[in-house]
């Protein structure tokens, strides 16, 4: 093993971490994270940005010591980490408050676990509750509070421990737009004022603006398996002015990176550590190439929104803001649109192709034809399923058969989602029918007839 040195001011260092989960029925492993290296230094705010499937939450939990890595090491304060990390506290997406404890009892929980005397922990808890602006709610139960106030309790519970690094797992994504805006601003103010109860912050998010607004450094994760694609340094004075051109340029740039898996994270933003993702070999099976999880309704809806723009071209950040969709929801749809050849994405813009424009404006029947044509051309999984059905004398096949094939490459839950997506596409394209009660796929009469006519 090579000697692993951590920079002196690194609070958390992740060295060559791999993580994989076993696939069902001993079919091998599913890689979630590959060769992750990163550090969190004292005095900085780091954002981990990635799409769903990039393993960002898994990485956060590995740093918290909640999940052991399959390979590699995590160092906390230069010491290898075993078990739960004592130097961090976490703020959860779902707040993770105990509903049967009052606000104060929830905040005191970590101190109680340390065995701190009652008076001392009471004193500290009150101070933390004060800091998040929940004065007067000490004896309220979580169910009496609004979402934003619940998350304030979540922050107070983490603050009271005065951790070295505060970990946040999409802390604002369960809140409505206004509440999250408000709370995010307050957390930023608290950090900028220099009175923050932790030395560093590591925030996991799928909201690009949020990352650029809060962080000094945005680390971008690629998907399948999760890997560090590079980092973007946010070279703006704190607090980051959202209206500045540089802010917009950075957001645009990150959108470009996130919509193009091939783009190297370099240029435009200074001081960038770049890494080219190693090219994955051409997948052996049509089932190994994952479909983006988008329903046909979402695909045509997006196309119809874009066609209303001049030249059938739209700026992705603006589009996302206009339709209030976050990266996790928007990007799969964009991916499908690109995969099906309805649009192209470059420089943070999305541009409809001719077929895409045709699809967005024509009648339902014709758009189904277009969709079928594009799907058979570009989605190997669909054409493979149709082929399998055609080879069967009964023109039908158990759904389990295809699920088994998918199980080879994905954890079972993901295999089921892949199957649901491919069924949605195939049904819309009228390539096959799916009978949910019998759990079988059928060739529709017409397709079957057309096939038999062919010699």
């Amino acid at each position, binding site marked *: 093993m090579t000697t692993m040195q951590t920079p002196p001011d690194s609070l958390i260092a992740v060295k060559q971490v791999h993580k994989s*989960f*076993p696939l069902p029925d*001993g079919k091998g492993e599913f890689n979630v994270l590959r060769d992750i290296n990163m550090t969190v230094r004292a005095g900085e705010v780091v954002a981990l940005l990635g799409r769903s499937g990039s393993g960002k939450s898994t990485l956060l*939990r590995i740093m*918290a*010591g*909640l*999940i*052991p890595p399959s390979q590699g090491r995590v160092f906390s304060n230069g010491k290898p980490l*075993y*078990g*739960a*990390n*004592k130097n*961090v*506290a*976490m703020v*959860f*997406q*779902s*707040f*993770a*408050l*105990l*509903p*049967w*404890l009052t606000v104060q009892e929830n905040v005191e*929980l*970590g101190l*109680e*676990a*340390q*065995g701190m005397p*009652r008076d001392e922990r009471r004193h500290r808890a009150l101070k933390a509750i004060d800091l998040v602006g929940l004065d007067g709610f000490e004896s309220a*139960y*979580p*169910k*009496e509070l609004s979402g934003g106030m*619940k998350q304030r309790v979540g922050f107070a*519970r983490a603050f009271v*421990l005065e951790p070295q690094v505060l970990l946040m797992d999409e802390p604002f994504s369960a809140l409505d737009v206004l509440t999250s805006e408000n709370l995010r601003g307050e957390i930023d103010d608290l950090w900028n004022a220099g009175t923050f109860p932790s030395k560093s912050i590591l925030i996991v998010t799928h909201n690009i603006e949020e990352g650029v607004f809060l962080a000094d450094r945005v680390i971008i994760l690629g998907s399948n398996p999760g890997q560090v694609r590079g980092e973007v340094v946010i070279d703006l004075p704190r607090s980051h002015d959202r209206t500045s051109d540089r802010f917009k340029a950075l957001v645009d740039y990150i959108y470009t990176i996130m919509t193009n898996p091939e783009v190297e994270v370099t240029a435009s933003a200074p001081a960038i550590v770049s890494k080219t993702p190693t090219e994955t070999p051409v997948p052996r099976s049509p089932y190994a190439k994952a479909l983006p999880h988008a329903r046909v309704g979402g695909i045509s809806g997006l196309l119809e929104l874009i066609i209303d723009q001049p030249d059938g071209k739209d700026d992705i950040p603006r589009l996302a803001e206009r339709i209030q969709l976050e990266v996790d929801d928007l990007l799969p749809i964009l991916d499908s649109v690109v995969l099906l050849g309805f649009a192209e994405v470059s420089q943070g813009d999305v541009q409809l192709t001719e077929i895409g424009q045709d699809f967005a404006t024509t009648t339902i029947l014709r758009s189904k034809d277009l969709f079928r044509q594009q799907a058979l051309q570009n989605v190997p999984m669909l054409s493979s399923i149709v082929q399998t059905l055609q080879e069967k004398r009964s023109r039908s096949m158990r759904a389990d058969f295809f699920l088994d094939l998918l199980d080879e490459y994905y954890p079972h839950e993901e295999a089921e989602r892949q199957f649901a997506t491919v069924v949605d596409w195939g049904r819309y394209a009228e390539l096959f029918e799916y009978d949910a*009660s019998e759990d079988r796929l059928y060739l529709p009469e017409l397709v079957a007839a057309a096939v038999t006519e062919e010699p």
Partner: protein
Amino acid sequence: MLKRTFPSPEALRRFPFGLADIAVILGTLVLLALIARIGAGTLVSFQPPDVMPGIDLDPRNLPYYAGRSTLRMFIALLCSTVFTLVYGYVAANSRRAERVMIPLLDILQSVPVLGFLSITVTGFIALFPGSLLGLEAASIFATFTSQVWNMTFSFYQSLRTVPKELDEAMTLYRLSRWQRFTKLEVPSAMIGLVWNAMMSFGGGWFFVAASEAISVLNQNYTLPGIGSYVAAAIAKEDLPSLGWALLTIAVVILLVDQMFWRPLIAWSDKFRLEQSASADTPQSWVYDLLQTARIPRLLGKALTPIQDRINRLLSALTPPSPPRSDAPEQPNDRLYSLILLFVVGALVVTAIHFILTTVGINEVVTTFGLGLLTLLRVTVLLIFATLIWTPIGVAIGFNPKLARLLQPVVQFLASFPANFIFPFATLFFIHTHISINWGSILLMSLGSQWYILFNSIAGAQGIPTDLREMSMDVGLQGWQRWRRLIIPGIFSAWVTGGVTASGGAWNASIVSEIVSWGQSTLIATGLGAYIAQATAVGDWPRITLGIGMMSLFVVGINRLLWRRLYRLAETKYHL
């Protein structure tokens, strides 16, 4: 209205050291005195067959007998709770233990409790020679086994479904295992646990009554209690005494509900996992009274330091466990599975060998035939109960006012021990010359039909209003409406009710296929009567065979029928 007789909490708060406190003090004293008086009775001398406690049929003794039975119920409940917490915790936290404990639980749930009495009674009498405690323990044990499995399953399920982020928060904040248990695991399981305990407790009356007066191994054992009072009244053909017993048990069930279960349910409502306030919270006047009184709070405050010290001590003893690893099966695990398989195989072979060498294969075929007969009875019962009670249940469920009024009544009927009604039904059969072969179906249904009704009401309430309005709107009527809306809508609730009812009916067959009034005894042909007769004469091979066959039937039907229906309910008819 019962509630009006007590002043509202607001009014009570006006007194400095309120009426509520006086009520609480008096209540506590009365409770302690009752327990002392009744508990003393368990220690009387018992030297079978010379010295046996008798039953005095004077109705004035009924409160005392009822108290004895109630005390047994609560001791059994306490044992069930402790067992549940330990068994459920171990099963949920050790993968290896889980693989034995959960299937075992599944089987134990299906074994007819009453068939076991013979084994446990002899065992416990040997444990406490010369004292009634042996019989007492056997009765408590029978009640315990009727209550515990449901509760344990519910607790285990809750432990397995603790929300992931809460679990992670507890790990990250380094709570000791004791703290995790008291702050997260037990509270998140509380509501399910209390409801299950209440339902099981209701079912327990049947078993406590049945286990107080039994004949085992050619010996009649009588334990003072309301069940043995009924048995004595039956032997003496004393109808008025039976009436008094019926009245007493009704009052006791109501009292326990008001004084114990309602407050408990009102209290446990704060353990709801939903993070938003719900509109209607359960109410209890006893709980309100305890909340208003100051003594409980003062007492609580005075005990805090001690509590803190105990918590700290237990926390120090149970350091936080490392995060669960997701490693695949170890080679050791395979060895473990092999050993398990071997042990199970050896047990089965021993049982089969024992049966074959003692009673022979013919007897096995006979019992199988008897099992089919009892199965036929259970099936007829389920069909009739469904045909009669589902329409009524749906009518009640669709009418919120009626439902609120009748639901407690149905709950009461479900927990009313059916064996108290048996003598009246027996008399009826004797006078009308109805064959017990058919009559036993009615007897079995006395206890189990309510589950169908109960769940039909709940299922109908669960059908969304807009679906009902839609069905009116498109003009669905009569059978159409049932076929398209109601049957699919209440299906999963009906399955739950059906499983419970069928389990209850199998168990009840042991006491309802053989009933007596005075000197006349009616015996039906069936597996239940077979077990009861074998138990009475202490024929071990036949007891083993009978119980084994019945368990096989119950487990088999659960696997073949109910589990499939459950899956169908979960996938297709999920609302």
